[in-house]
């Protein structure tokens, strides 16, 4: 499973829409959607910081490591 994103849960808890969060963080809805649906390959610290700021949470609230098969193998090069 690897890293699981809990943006859905946090949005519900904060009563915030994806569009609203995207505007506040300053990234596109498409990009935020990629993150929410666990399709992202990497997250910038600046994005993570902005998400935590707007959602008033810790990185650990947003991301969780779940034991099991990873989405992909780490690059060897």
């Amino acid at each position, binding site marked *: 499973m690897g890293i699981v994103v809990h943006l859905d849960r946090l949005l519900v808890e904060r009563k915030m829409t994806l569009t609203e969060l995207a505007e506040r963080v300053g990234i596109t809805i498409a990009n935020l959607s990629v993150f929410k649906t666990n399709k992202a*390959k*990497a*997250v*910038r610290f600046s*994005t993570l910081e902005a998400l935590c700021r707007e959602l008033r949470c810790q990185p650990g609230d947003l991301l969780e490591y779940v034991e099991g098969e990873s989405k992909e193998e780490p*690059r060897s090069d």
Partner: protein
Amino acid sequence: MAAPEGLEDRVVKVIGGGSLASVLGLVVEVAWYLSIVGVILVAGAGLRGLVSDPAEVRLDWPVSIELDRGSYEIASDQLRVEGGRLLEMSGELGLLSGSRGFLLAWLMLGGMWLAAILAVIYQLRALFKTLAAGTPFVRANVWRLRFIGTVIIAVEVFMTLLRLLVSLYLRANVTTTGFTVKIDFRFTAEILFVGFVLLVIAEIFRQGTEMREEQALTV
């Protein structure tokens, strides 16, 4: 060593619309249509040969030859010349096909060669379209470059072996006076080099594509 300043401000636009790549793409496009015309002409000539008199169709095979010593003289009144050598002599041996089967085999060989050229130009066309569109790092281009490199190497190796076998056959079966058909074992190192360089560039494209995909999925 640091990159020269102003490297980004290139005078010539290399990829994208109205770039060097789009001009080269046009050249490839012309080559593509010329190749198709060439294939039609060759196929037409082959079919005509098969239908009319297959045994009398003349086939020219390139050979390397060596002149027999004594069959030529080198002299000068002005200079002191001590002998000499004639190097890299080549020509063509005109062979009559002899039978329909021989001609068919010959046409199949030519057809394979033309097919390889067409396949390479076809892939080049697609490659240059992506370059002109400004999107070079796509997985299809990795495959295209590998394909082109592999075909170039394979055709050169195949042609080298074929030239060798035919020259051995001709030496054994053709009597010549004044010259000898040489055992033809020459390959064009530049062509093989280009083939291997393309395989390396394909790997660079693979890594570039991975990086682009990763960048697109970075939030």
